[in-house]
């Protein structure tokens, strides 16, 4: 069974859904290019999370000469799952400075209006999906060449 889906009629309640996401995050996802974990292991409501994205190498295997400015950089993000998660998306902001079209340059907040996954949020989307989608976004034509702040600086 995949996280959050649980078939057509069964709705996994918030807390049990977040426990599933926690366990998946603890096991480690794929090649490790995105990962996440809980900030406060005492918070019974599992609200604050830190996500990590390793900047994508290049656009595609065929176009391997086109690299991205994000290659190999490590980005830290904060995700906040409120009481209405996963009916509503978490709030997402970059902690590590980044220059990206969907990210507020002052605050690091991922602007829902400019990031489709948050605008068209569906209950079965997960924090992993958000991180994976943001990583894809970094490699998109309008983001992959943007001049970036020095590495290791924070909002």
């Amino acid at each position: 069974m995949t996280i959050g889906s649980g078939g057509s009629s069964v709705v996994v309640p918030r807390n049990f859904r977040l426990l599933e996401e926690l366990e998946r995050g603890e096991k480690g996802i794929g090649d490790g290019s995105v990962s996440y974990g809980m900030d406060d292991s005492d918070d019974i409501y599992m609200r604050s999370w830190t996500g990590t994205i390793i900047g994508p190498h290049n656009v595609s295997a065929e176009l391997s000469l086109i690299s991205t400015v994000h290659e190999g950089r490590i980005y830290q993000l904060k995700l906040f799952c409120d009481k209405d998660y996963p009916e509503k998306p978490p709030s997402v902001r970059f902690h590590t400075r980044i220059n990206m079209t969907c990210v507020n340059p002052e605050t690091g907040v991922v602007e829902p209006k400019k990031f489709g996954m948050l605008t068209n949020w569906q209950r079965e989307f997960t924090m992993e999906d958000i991180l994976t989608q943001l990583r894809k976004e970094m490699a998109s034509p309008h983001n992959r060449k943007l001049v970036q702040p020095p590495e290791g600086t924070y909002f």
Partner: protein
Amino acid sequence: MANSNLPRRIIKETQRLLSEPAPGISASPSEENMRYFNVMILGPSQSPYEGGVFKLELFLPEEYPMAAPKVRFLTKIYHPNIDKLGRICLDILKDKWSPALQIRTVLLSIQALLSAPNPDDPLSENIAKHWKTNEAEAVETGELTAFLLALRHKKFPSSHSSLLFANFYS
């Protein structure tokens, strides 16, 4: 919708939980999701948790009864088989689950786990060590936790828990 096609077995179990609750245990389904239960367990008498009111949540996954219910404590508790997020280390919730078991038996087992912690199969290493090396002191810590929780519940009564609690103490 969340509540359509609720299996007959779940309906039966729910009716019985409401009409014949087990002593010291209450479980009622949430209005929005009949597979999601608010649970209250009273600390068993002659255990370190006596006097405590413990809130839990329980969810019947799609595979239930072929898969075990998911249960966790929402009230903080000092216990060697329960971790900081309230997750419970209990064999029948994992590999010893059988479809012959029910919500009721699961909750009774959790109540029994409060009476008889199992420090040989710990989720919380620190508490288990504490329990093994100095049971009396660990029991005291448990009692203190239960006492403080009881105070908190009296001070901030909420939903049906305060009613249950009042009956228990009157």
